[in-house]
């Protein structure tokens, strides 16, 4: 589903070059729940941003569903993100002035292949799935951190994306809320055969992943099925 070949990202800070990604090659299959783990500065978030079309690589190639995304125009990237990808961010990233229902509906409202009735139905359905239907008229600031992250997940899922990206979604949550959110990710992955790519630095999160890649200094140092990872 995702083919990454010799991916490099170099940041220039004055005269110093920082290799955030250093010749990374990786394939991700449909339906996988992939965990990207590693210490701070290892390049895991950078990789996620490249895969999610949020940033441009310095060199290398990313092919998603047979499409070379480096050839996309700015507008095509936006539409690709809207129709094919879903995102959950560390700090929930909800629009503070929109209600839960409006936040969740927002990406669906922009799709040209959805009617208003469908948008409402889909948003309602996903809110029911995450158990926040009764809070749909509330504003984000009226919800707990865990609830906000679940709304963020609902927003990411409302368009039924091909790939769901999550960048340390539990970083701001306590263990109990983290578990609730991760259970939801697992349920979505299993019930909808949803491809999920998640960045995490919490070791206990690995229980949820099918496959884990570990990174250090912009390189993959291990890649394998959970419990049987191999060193590279």
């Amino acid at each position: 589903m995702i083919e990454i070949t010799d991916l490099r990202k170099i940041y220039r800070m004055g005269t110093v070059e920082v290799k955030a990604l250093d010749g990374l090659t990786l394939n991700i299959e449909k339906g996988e729940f992939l965990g990207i783990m590693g210490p701070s500065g290892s390049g895991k978030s950078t990789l996620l941003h490249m895969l999610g079309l949020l940033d441009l690589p310095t060199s290398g190639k990313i092919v998603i569903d047979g499409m070379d995304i480096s050839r996309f125009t700015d507008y095509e990237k936006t539409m690709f993100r809207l129709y094919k990808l879903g995102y959950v961010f560390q700090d929930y990233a909800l629009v503070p002035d929109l209600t839960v229902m409006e936040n969740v509906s927002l990406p669906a409202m922009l799709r040209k292949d959805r009617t208003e009735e469908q948008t409402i139905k889909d948003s309602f359905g996903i809110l029911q799935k995450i158990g926040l239907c009764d809070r749909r008229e509330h504003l984000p600031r009226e919800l707990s951190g865990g609830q906000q992250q679940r709304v963020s997940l609902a927003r990411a899922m409302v368009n039924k994306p091909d790939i769901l990206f999550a960048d340390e979604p539990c970083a701001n949550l306590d263990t109990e809320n983290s578990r609730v959110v991760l259970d939801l990710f697992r349920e979505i992955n299993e019930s909808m055969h949803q491809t999920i790519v998640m960045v995490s630095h919490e070791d206990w999160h690995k229980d949820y992943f099918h496959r884990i890649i570990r990174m250090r200094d912009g390189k993959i140092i291990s890649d394998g099925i959970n419990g049987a990872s191999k060193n590279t």
Partner: protein
Amino acid sequence: MGQKELKVAFLLALRSLQRGSRSSVILTVLIIGMCFTNMIFLPSMFSGIGQSITKQLVDYEVSNILVSPKSGDQYITDIDATLDLINGMPGVQRASPHYSKGATFKYRQRILGVSVRAISPMDEKEVSPVYTKMVAGSYLGEGDTGEIIIGKPIAGDATVRQEDEFQASLGGVRVGDSITVEYGNGYTKDYRVKGIYSTGWSPVDNAAFVTWTDMELVEGKTLDKADYITVRAKPGYTEQFIKNELLAYGVGVNGQVQTMTDLLSKSVGKVLQSFAIINAVSLVVSVIITTVVLFIVITIKTLNSRKQIGILKAIGVDKEVIMHNYGFQVIILGILGIILGIIITLLLAAYMSVHPIVTPEWSAYLYITPMDLLTNSVILFCAAVIAGYVPAYQVSREEIQSAMRA
């Protein structure tokens, strides 16, 4: 940019204004409202002064058409025939002759130089509204002799001491009092004050009126001449039409025929031109202030929302939607500000129509036409849209990563 995108942009804008900082919204609307008021207040007041001067000139000095002596002549002669001719013209409501003579008024210990104007009261009533401005007593009758009406500043106020007076007066003349009038030709006569008027037009309020018959007694002969004739047009007839008719029928042989517009362009035309320049400067300054203020407001708003803008872009919201979101916010703020400005302006106009700024020469009120409101609204709206869209355009084009890191 389709309907769906615009709908989402509008929803984002509306919710931001509804659920965002209320004080920021109120303050911005207030600023736009005050800018609108500033844009329209000064020009409207100048227009009001211009209208006031024009109306007073028409009502109390020249009417619609002024027939004055030809160059080199002191009077219009053969006045009876000239009046018959003018009054017989189509479109002429009435023509009223005026003849003035300098005189000295004496009342008790007070002495005052005043210009006495002779009129034919019946004719003058149809040409000038002075008869509606009586503050005491009554207007002159056609056959009155030995009676005079005087302006309020001449009559004066008995409660004000002479040394405290703003302008010299007779010190409190009342209706029924007798004043001695000594004309320039030596003719002296005691008149009974029949009425006191106040028009607000200084040259008239500082004059006195007697009947044509009375002035004939002063001159000691039939008065067949006039300083000038004022002509009132019937409704529906243009001044130019009447002027052309008068010239065609030979009134121009006896005197010079000018419309009120001809006279205004010579007299107050320069004043009105100066007002127009001040108005233009005031308008430009107001538009610049509004544009800069809105630019700052929207720039701060977008800078504070950079992270959110990055996130919206990340989840697939097109940059055009983000730009129009801020554009719609400015449009809504602009419309609310303009509505507030119109309300403030109309309230000021209503207040000033009851309490105008009065000076001896003119009274200032706000003269506002629907076209003024529309023009200023459109100008301010355009300025607001430009001021809002420029920062919105800039921020919507920022890279997702740099916006999200903000």
